[in-house]
């Protein structure tokens, strides 16, 4: 009686509302079967989980109180955070500047196909790899240090901002473009007076979002040698200095939250 018949009484309706359809049941069953299969493949067991809980209690015990008191470590942390901030600022600045032309070139309503395809390919390539993987390649290319991190995050910024910017341009109203073009404007004039005013607000939204994202990732590229606080964090983990790890994590989270607050203010001012 689970299916709603043509002469459905109140009882049938309730049954139809509360019980799952057969396809949904099979779907959930498949999901459960997958979870059981995957956990057995990856060798997860309840025992490991219990041992892990004990380790977690130990870890948390060793993380508190966080170690802020040693001056040399505090100095190291400060330098790492400042380098992360430099990486975030520079990669955002160059990333935003570079994604403007790339985004325009990738917009299919402004450019012919032979221009958009290479531009879209570049964006796709920039987006496909995690910034950390890109950072590995740049560490090999330009050596350890902030430059590798900056270049990796520029790539990530182009992948994100240029993609969304191109999509925003593709959604603009063409009436204004036609009007400006009818007045005899050249391509740059069309771009400045008809296209950019329509996408300005969204571009600022993307840019400030990427600024937050770059700030987050700039604290991580150090794990593979790309400069910033990440290297300090990884070596603290390696030395089991969990109280120092905790101090660094608190500092990172504080920096990211202040950064988000600032970029929110910026957005409010410009939108």
């Amino acid at each position, binding site marked *: 009686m689970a299916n709603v018949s043509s002469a459905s009484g109140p009882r049938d309706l309730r049954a139809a509302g509360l019980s799952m359809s057969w396809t949904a049941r099979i779907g959930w069953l498949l999901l459960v079967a997958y979870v059981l299969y995957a956990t057995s493949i990856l060798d997860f067991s309840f025992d490991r989980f219990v041992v892990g809980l004990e380790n977690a209690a130990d870890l948390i015990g060793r993380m508190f109180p966080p170690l802020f008191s040693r001056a040399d470590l505090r100095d190291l942390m400060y330098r790492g955070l400042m380098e992360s901030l430099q990486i975030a600022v*520079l990669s955002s600045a160059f990333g935003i500047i570079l994604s403007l032309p790339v985004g325009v070139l990738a917009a299919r309503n402004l450019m012919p196909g032979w221009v958009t395809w290479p531009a879209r390919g570049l964006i796709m390539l920039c987006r496909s*790899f995690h910034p950390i993987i890109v950072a590995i390649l740049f560490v090999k290319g330009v050596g350890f240090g902030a430059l590798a991190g900056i270049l990796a995050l520029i790539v990530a910024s182009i992948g994100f901002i240029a993609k969304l910017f191109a999509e925003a341009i593709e959604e603009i109203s063409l009436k204004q473009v036609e009007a400006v073009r009818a007045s005899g404007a050249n391509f740059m004039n069309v771009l400045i007076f008809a296209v950019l005013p329509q996408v300005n607000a969204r571009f600022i939204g993307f840019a400030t979002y990427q600024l937050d994202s770059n700030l987050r990732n700039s604290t991580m590229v150090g*794990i593979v040698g790309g400069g910033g606080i990440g290297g300090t964090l990884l070596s603290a983990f390696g030395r089991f200095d969990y109280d120092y790890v905790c101090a660094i994590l608190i500092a990172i989270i504080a920096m990211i939250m202040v950064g988000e607050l600032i970029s929110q203010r910026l957005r409010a001012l410009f939108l």
Partner: protein
Amino acid sequence: MSTTVESLEREWSRFTPAQRVGRYFTYLIIAAAVVWALRTVEIIPEFLADAPEQMLDLFQRMWPVDWSHYYQTDGMGVHHALVETMHIATLGTILAVIMAVPVGLMAARNVTPFGPANFLAKLILAASRSVNSLVWALLFVAVFGPGPLAGTFAIAFRSIGFVGKLLGEALEEAKSGTIEALQATGAPWLSVLKIGYWPQVRPAFWSIAVFRWDINVRESAVLGLVGAGGIGMVIDTSLNTFRWDRVAMALIAILIVVLAAEILVTFVRKRIL
């Protein structure tokens, strides 16, 4: 009609003086920040001059790609690690959704009309999001030891914030009509959730889940760099032995999987929404 003339002669401007000062001030701050960063950042000029040569060397070492490393019978090849990465991403997403649903319910002000609970839920979500997945991975490697278990938990804990935040927002957008009707009949809260909220947020729910899965496929590819299982482990081993041809193999595999996942997710989301 002197008033009209006066008002026409007024100088019109798009922004108030305060807004204008604010904008100039912002430009100034941005310019100052960029200049400060450029002047103080430590870039070694020799490294920079050497960069084109090194990049060329990198590609020469990557080519020819070690295709044979894709499948190794000892289970150390790319294939095995790639499957592990997909399992980490999928199990991590499932675990994240399971944990995020109660937090999302608690964060939605119309579902839980209790301020402190909303605040607590938002705090959990913010904490989950502000710790990077690599940091979660480092923590869970310390807890569970190296391997995919740590990776799965890292992905799950990182995703709670994303899934819970979007789910909470979807719940808050649900229309109150059905819900009030249900409450008026005296329905218990579980029924209100199931019949009132669930049908309204179901498309958003599945859309959020598959979207996060797509992100997690990318993220789980790097967790191995800190020992949390998956294809990142292969990259790490190959890097340590300078086998760039094997790194290239792993990167190509990641590229294909990421693109396939994105196409799949775009297709699924079109069907759902």
